[in-house]
């Protein structure tokens, strides 16, 4: 049994999601290899080789891997697949994009978003927005898996695995990267942040969202999140959305201001260690999951909280 983890990386370095995925892979039993496929990705390969528990890093170079296009990434994984019993991707936008192409071509089912590894072929995963947890068994010889990173601790970076450079598969040529708009921020990444402050529709405008929530996030060194309603109304960018079909987070501290707590939002944050809810509405469902609930007007309470920290 050997596992292949497809690294999430930015060419110069790996992203935290890779560390949690390696932990999940190790639990499947057997050696863990990490694939770094990218362009000028030596930095990412070097970082991957430092992950504890990794036996080998496979580094594939090519301009057509620069942006992680699913067709090319999947072709690369498939060229190596016969060596592995388990192929794991983090359940990030990238991992979710690529993994099913690999599974379908191998003619195997995919187990999405695992939260626990029970045995090498049995896993726990959430269904119905996490309102139910299913224990499922894969009947296929090769398991293709996406890993919910909040379900596993990050592996340490104390290792030193050998890096094998391998020639990559050719460009599929059917899709081309045109452009991207990725926000540059000094804030921690939402999916991996230890503290998240999240705003809801009650904030009323993009300006007020910024004026009220940003100072609190700054004080706490936190990432900023939002409810779907706030994003739909244009108060926060799409990639700040926390929820069933947005980001799944499990920080040490999640502060929800002006968020009512719809089922779909709770699905994205109910595994947070400590949840604080600030809401004017005593009946808001968010209070049912909050460890500390403050019934107050957020326009008064949040600035007060920022000042008190």
């Amino acid at each position: 049994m050997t596992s292949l983890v497809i690294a999430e990386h930015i060419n110069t370095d790996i992203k935290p999601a890779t560390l949690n995925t390696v932990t999940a892979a190790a639990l499947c039993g057997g050696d863990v290899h990490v694939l770094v496929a990218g362009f000028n990705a030596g930095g990412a390969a070097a970082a991957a080789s430092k992950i504890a528990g990794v036996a080998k890093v496979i580094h594939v170079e090519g301009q057509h891997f620069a942006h992680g296009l699913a067709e090319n990434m999947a072709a690369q994984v498939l060229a190596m697949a016969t060596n592995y019993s388990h192929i794991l991707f983090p359940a990030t936008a990238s991992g979710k994009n690529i993994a099913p192409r690999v599974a379908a071509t191998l003619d195997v089912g995919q187990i999405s978003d695992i939260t626990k590894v029970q045995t090498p072929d049995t896993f726990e995963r959430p269904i119905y927005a996490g309102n139910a947890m299913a224990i499922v068994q894969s009947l296929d010889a090769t398991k293709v898996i996406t890993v919910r990173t909040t379900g596993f601790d990050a592996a340490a970076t104390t290792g030193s695995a050998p890096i094998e450079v391998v020639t990559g598969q050719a460009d599929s040529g059917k899709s081309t990267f045109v452009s991207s708009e990725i926000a540059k921020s000094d804030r921690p990444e939402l999916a991996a942040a230890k503290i998240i402050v999240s705003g809801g529709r009650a904030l009323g405008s993009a300006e007020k969202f910024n004026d009220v929530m940003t100072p609190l996030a700054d004080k706490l060194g936190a990432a900023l999140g939002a409810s779907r309603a706030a994003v739909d109304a244009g108060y926060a960018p799409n990639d700040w959305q926390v929820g069933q079909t947005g980001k799944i987070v499990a920080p040490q501290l999640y502060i929800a201001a002006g968020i009512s707590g719809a089922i779909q939002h709770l699905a994205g944050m109910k595994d947070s260690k400590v949840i604080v809810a600030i809401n004017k509405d005593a009946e808001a469902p968010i209070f049912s999951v909050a460890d500390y609930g403050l019934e107050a007007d957020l326009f008064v309470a949040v600035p007060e909280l920022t000042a008190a920290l």
Partner: protein
Amino acid sequence: MKVLVPVKRVVDYNVKVRVKSDGTGVDIANVKMSMNPFDEIAIEEATRLKEKGVVTEVIAVSCGVLQCQETLRTAMAIGADRAILVETNEELQPLAVAKLLKALVDKEQPQLVILGKQAIDDDCNQTGQMLAALLGWPQATFAFKVEVADGKANVTREVDGGLETLSLTLPAIITTDLRLNEPRYVTLPNIMKAKKKQLDNFKPEDLGVDVKPRIKTLSVNEPPKRSAGIKVADVAALVDKLKNEAKVI
């Protein structure tokens, strides 16, 4: 150009599902069922492409029990021209659905298949990508904006840090994300017209597909419950609790 839009009948998104105490699954008896919200967005996008003159025919497809016909009638009321039901009472998993859809794509030869990014019951997020692989087509998942012209689809997609735009040569697969569009309300005249639109029925065997599940559900349980929290009187009390009790700041 034809576009195929698969739609899934799922538990309505407003329903808070209950886990059965015997651990065998979720109780969906007598629960309200609806079209998967992402699939509604897919039908809406296909309809808009038709209204722009880019697409000539929108075909809705659903796989599952006979009641999926209701979901298909809704799809036709939004704008699909005709529908196909692949009827079976077997449990269908994404790989099987992708194979059924491939068989229909081979028959119908659409240039585009638009799917919802994930179903809100199983939350798998696999079918569109699997279909793309089986067909050898390019894909653009989590679409935020779609433009189709000159044999290409330019799709802006939601990715973890923001947005990314890809150009795909047709035929291609697109999966929809939440903000791609806001589906129109279905009007009564369109509901009436939909009842008369063509709805064809196939069985998986007719399409030569083995739909046997590859993943077995051993048990379904409630998620761990959080212990009840407390209300704090004011900000000072909150800060005190966070620093001294929870020790998270």
